[in-house]
């Protein structure tokens, strides 16, 4: 059979969103006003977007920085994606805590998804995507 059936096409068009929705995850878009952040000379260009300011209440968030070179920094400590769960688990053991991602705007979508699914497996329910305000606003 050289022809694809209609079923095959339906399967291809289906978007697999299950890994991210099995836990109710709240995605926030937050902006911070900071100088360009530098960790060990690694520059992170945050996306520019109009968003709500950082909430000042609730448990202290865990901040993950994702550099353009796909380096993940927990605080200012680089952590390999495969070791991230092990490093984060003790930080999240004390109860729900939001996780803020400071990702470079040029990061591949797939890499961000890898990080998000790791957070999802750890039961993180609140994730903030950190942005900076658009220029001129």
């Amino acid at each position, binding site marked *: 059979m050289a022809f694809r059936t209609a079923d095959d096409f339906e399967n291809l068009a289906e978007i697999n969103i299950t890994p991210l929705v099995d836990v109710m995850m709240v995605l926030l878009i937050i902006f911070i006003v900071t100088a360009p952040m530098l960790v060990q000379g*690694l520059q992170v260009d945050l996306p520019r977007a109009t968003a709500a300011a950082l909430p000042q209440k609730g448990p202290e968030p865990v901040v993950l920085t994702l550099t353009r070179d796909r380096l993940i920094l927990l605080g200012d400590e680089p952590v390999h994606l495969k070791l991230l769960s092990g490093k984060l688990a003790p930080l999240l053991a004390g109860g729900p805590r939001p996780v803020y991602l400071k990702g470079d705007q040029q990061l591949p979508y797939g890499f961000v998804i890898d990080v998000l699914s790791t957070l999802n497996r750890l039961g993180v329910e609140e994730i903030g995507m950190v942005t900076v305000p658009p220029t001129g606003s």
Partner: protein
Amino acid sequence: MRHLGTFSVALVLVASTATAQEEIYLKVTSPGLQRIVIGLAPFASRLGVDPVAASQFLNTLRADLDQTVVMGLLPEENARLVEAAPGNPGLTRQRWRAVGAQLLLEGSFSGAGNQLVVEAQLWELTSGEIAYSRRFQSSTSLAPTMAHTLANELVRLLTGKPGPFLSRIAFISDRSGAKELWLMRWDGSDPQQLTTHRSIALSPAWSPDGQRLAFTSFLRGQPQLFILRPTQGSFKPLSTLPGVNTSASFSPDGSQVAFAAGDGGSTYIWVVSSEGGTPVQLTTTRGISTQPAWSPNGRQIVFTSTVGGSPQLYAIDAEGTNLRRLTFQDTFADEASWAPDGVRLAYTTQVDGRFQIATLDLRTNQRTVIDGPGNNESPCWSPDGTMLAFVSTRTGRKQIFITDPVGRPRQITSEGNNTQPSWVALVQ
């Protein structure tokens, strides 16, 4: 009676908790302090480099780095996660940090023919700075020695003292049929027979510079003291006093040797110039005085004496004054060995009829007895004070053990009976 009963119950409780403890001889790292994790980046190799020498170098280095007290090699499964970023060494180093490395050793091989050149840099990954950089050049046959030298320097960088990797242990073994003097690398590899007297050799002791080895031999019938220069092969008598001449110990500057000698019922501690000459008697108390050990600052000598009945440790100033007893809690104390810090002694004690290793802190007078299986005796500190060598019968015959980075015992000999270790930093 009631008092006695309570007392014995308390003793049983103490004994049971003691046996439940792990057999740790030295707590060299304070609790909670972890070994520094070092990553070993793949070494680049130029065309023409002897591949056998290069892999010998790397295998030796890897083995050394994993055996130190202060650092541990990054696990292989973590190292495999690191993807090199071409043209961006800074990012590559951050990726090493991301898999848990705190230090990263980078290096390259060059040189051709029978020459091997190694260039090595150690990066401190948190600050991103070079902590150490050095170029080594030698003949390919010395590749393992180059690796040991590099590992020693890395340990020195972290502790201020060189690592044990070029150190050697002299010992007595009967593996060739008679009790002869032998030498091996600190981890038990590369054993070499130093004497072929077919007599009885006993109690070897290194000069601190690693050039001379004093020991007792029955070569001429009576036990006499001899000096051997292993690298030159020269061999001459040092003390031939009537009766026994035994248990030599060099002064820290190598100029003098303390030993035990005597005829008839008593032996005394004597001191003789290490170049030979007339020995001077240091102690005069009756009974057996033996096993002198010169303190690292040269001011005093600890020895075993039976003057109070049972063998106990005593100290005397090197001039022969200020005699004092050091051990009071032991029924038996012998074979003292000074830690290089000059504060701790390791010695052989007796618990429930078995010999065990004990340590005594001379500042606090705290005595620690390690409860190991079998008989454990003849402790000897490593030159940097982070390890102990000792003799144990736990696996049947007498074998030499050293402590691993955690302080647990590790067997390093297996052929014949092997006893009386004496550890030196470098044989010259």
